[in-house]
């Protein structure tokens, strides 16, 4: 897992908006009406940074938040509430007024009625995970904050607008330009956005705040982990999952990635990891969690047809993850689809027996190698060979080169955002190589190929563990062409041949084949 570089400094690229980890001060407020309140309030946590307070009737009294944190500076707040009757907008507003960071408040549900040991342990594990997530929170820059007004869909009178309507702040992504490779032509975030809010303009990704729907799908699409999305950033989600799975008891077996808009949360042993949208959960997240020892992992959606039009994508990823589990000799039902329901019936955790052995975990959910790492980790755990298979939602793929039509022009390797395809020149040969472990099935190589109409390249959505482990292999090679003047290699023999066939009688070796473009210009 990559450490968030912004956590290590107070003066970052975007200015002084960043808290040092050692400066984070957090508070957990527990509703005293919960049956597990006392157990959570007495949990053993890092007292230097975090305090736990038990407040009777907290669920129905958001004023208590301000009272509780008024005595000292608190920038991260976890509210453990037992009754789902609070207003999230109101609670967040109260938190901000108490000095908590804009996206520094998490609300977690704890049991209200059932009083047994298991539930108390589950709640404590949940709090531990939330604390880990809060400590990894990327502080929002001004550009990460989008203002929305509650009830803005309804008609409102002019008189009412003399008062500021209730505000809810939502995160919007910003791009860490120090790692973004949009300048090399990557358009993964742009292509993934269902609202066309991101655009690669001359190598710089522009975010249209007004169009952004705060779904976070771009976070999962970015091979560079360059999308910063406070509240739902990769590092926050990964820290939470790691903290939960590091709990060596029976309470951390089942993890569910839950859409922030889902109405009904599951109960039982489920550990809830909030995500902005179910579609921001890549298949690698599902596989990595199982590989790390979880009994099961689920995705909880908001509604069947969400605003992100993500139903098919989520279905496809779940089906892919189940296919991998089945091929690895595990029960495919350890990956579950938890459709949202408006009914009062809560979703029970699955009845699956599974290994409970866990190693210290380092979860890699997002980024260029997350998919291959998670599959290899799963393979290493089960020792069951996963046979190669093709799946339409495979997060990894194998580019197939037609060596008779490929001109070795290098466009595919230049377009590859992950470095899976590389073209290396030596004095006499140019070689196109593939490191399958780095491929993330983005299709940029195919989209960029000038010989696509001749079938020079196609992407096979094949998961091939052997290919992922053997390292770079040569897909195609050709003789190089060097400049007669400067002696530098400047193209391949096939590219030159293609040029000759295109230009016909206009082609002469002296004009196009003897000198590189630089020397040609000088001459």
């Amino acid at each position: 897992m990559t450490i968030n570089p912004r956590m290590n400094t107070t003066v970052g690229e975007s200015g002084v908006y960043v808290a040092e980890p050692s400066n984070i001060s957090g508070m957990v407020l527990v509703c005293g009406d919960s049956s597990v309140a006392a157990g959570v309030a007495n949990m053993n946590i890092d007292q230097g940074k975090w305090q736990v307070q038990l407040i009777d009737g907290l669920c129905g009294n958001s004023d208590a938040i301000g009272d509780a944190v008024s005595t000292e500076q608190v920038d991260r707040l976890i509210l453990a509430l037992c009754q789902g009757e609070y207003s999230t907008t109101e609670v967040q507003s109260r938190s901000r007024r108490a000095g908590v960071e804009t996206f520094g408040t998490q609300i977690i549900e704890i049991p209200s009625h059932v009083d047994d040991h298991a539930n108390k342990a589950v709640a404590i594990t949940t709090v531990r995970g939330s604390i880990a997530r809060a400590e990894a929170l990327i502080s929002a820059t001004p550009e990460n904050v989008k203002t929305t007004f509650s009830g803005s869909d309804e008609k409102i009178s002019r008189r009412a607008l003399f008062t500021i309507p209730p505000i809810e702040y939502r995160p919007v992504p910003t791009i860490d330009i120090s790692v973004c490779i949009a300048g090399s032509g990557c358009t993964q975030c742009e292509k993934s956005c269902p609202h066309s809010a991101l655009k690669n303009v001359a190598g710089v990704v522009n975010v249209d705040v007004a169009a952004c729907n705060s779904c976070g799908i771009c976070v999962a699409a970015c091979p560079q982990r360059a999308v910063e999305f406070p509240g739902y950033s990769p590092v926050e989600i990964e820290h939470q999952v790691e903290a939960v799975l590091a709990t060596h008891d029976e309470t951390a077996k089942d993890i569910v990635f839950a859409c922030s808009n889902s109405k009904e949360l599951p109960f039982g042993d489920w550990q809830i990891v909030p995500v902005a949208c179910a579609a921001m959960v890549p298949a690698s997240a599902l596989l990595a969690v199982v590989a790390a020892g979880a009994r099961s992992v689920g995705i909880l959606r908001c509604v069947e047809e969400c605003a992100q039009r993500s139903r098919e994508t989520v279905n496809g990823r779940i089906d892919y993850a189940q296919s991998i589990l089945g091929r690895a000799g595990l029960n495919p039902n350890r990956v579950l689809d938890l459709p949202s329901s408006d009914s009062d019936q809560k979703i029970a955790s699955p009845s699956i027996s599974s290994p409970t052995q866990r190693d210290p975990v380092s979860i890699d959910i997002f980024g260029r190698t997350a998919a291959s790492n998670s599959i290899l980790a799963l393979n290493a755990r089960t020792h069951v060979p996963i046979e190669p298979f093709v799946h339409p939602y495979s997060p990894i793929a194998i580019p197939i080169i037609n060596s008779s039509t490929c001109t070795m022009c290098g466009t595919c390797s230049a377009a590859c955002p992950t470095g899976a395809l590389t073209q290396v020149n030596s004095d006499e040969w140019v070689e196109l190589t593939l490191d399958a472990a780095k491929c993330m099935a983005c299709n940029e190589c195919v989209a960029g190929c000038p010989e696509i109409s001749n079938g020079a390249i196609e992407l096979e959505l094949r998961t091939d563990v052997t290919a992922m482990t053997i390292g770079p292999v040569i897909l195609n090679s050709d003789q190089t062409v060097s400049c007669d003047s400067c002696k530098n290699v400047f193209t391949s023999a096939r590219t030159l041949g293609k040029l000759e066939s295109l230009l016909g009688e206009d082609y002469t070796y002296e004009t196009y084949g003897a000198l590189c473009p630089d020397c040609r210009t000088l001459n």
Partner: protein
Amino acid sequence: MGENTAKMADLAALRQMSYSLMSAVFLGNWRDTAELVCETAGEVLAVSDWAIGMSFYPALSRFLRTFSELDTESLADIESRYQRLFGPTPSSNPVPLNETSYLMPGAEETGWVLASVERHYSSAGIESTSASGNIPDHISVELEFIGFLSGCEADAWAADDFKEARRMQDRQRRFLDKHMSKWVPILQREIVDRNDDLFTLAVQATHVQVTHDLDFLRSLQPLMRSAT
């Protein structure tokens, strides 16, 4: 329980005060205005606590508190700090405080930026003068202008003139969108790199305020338009 009862007029008035104060901070006339700026910072801080739940408030309150609590020694030093950062001293590499330096380095386009800001000023019925020695795209002039528009909006709300308030919001939104939001973030990075804590606080508060206000006014626009 804790409903938001803050008025649009209060928010516009707070914007007016904040922008005017920020304008004074970047004007560079510290010998004459230092005490007044600090005093005003304290006064604005005292009347702004209702905005504590808004996303711009932490940066604004840090700026106001720090400037309101400056001691005599710091006040005496602030002029030279300003000159070190922004002044045309031969030994230093000053941070430019005008929009053109960030957006349009070419000579031809300089005129375009200046003409554009002048057009915003004149359409609001005001004219920039050279009395202050600052050009129209200087940060202080632009802040003073956006503060002026905020003040007009506050007056309109106070006079129950919804249409005029909306018109003033539109003017602010357009100016923030076309000009300040484009270059203040870059200015902010430039100043942060110089490690001057006071002016870093000031430019961060400006950056946060500009970004917030543009986003706020954009989000509010559909409500204002459709209000009956």
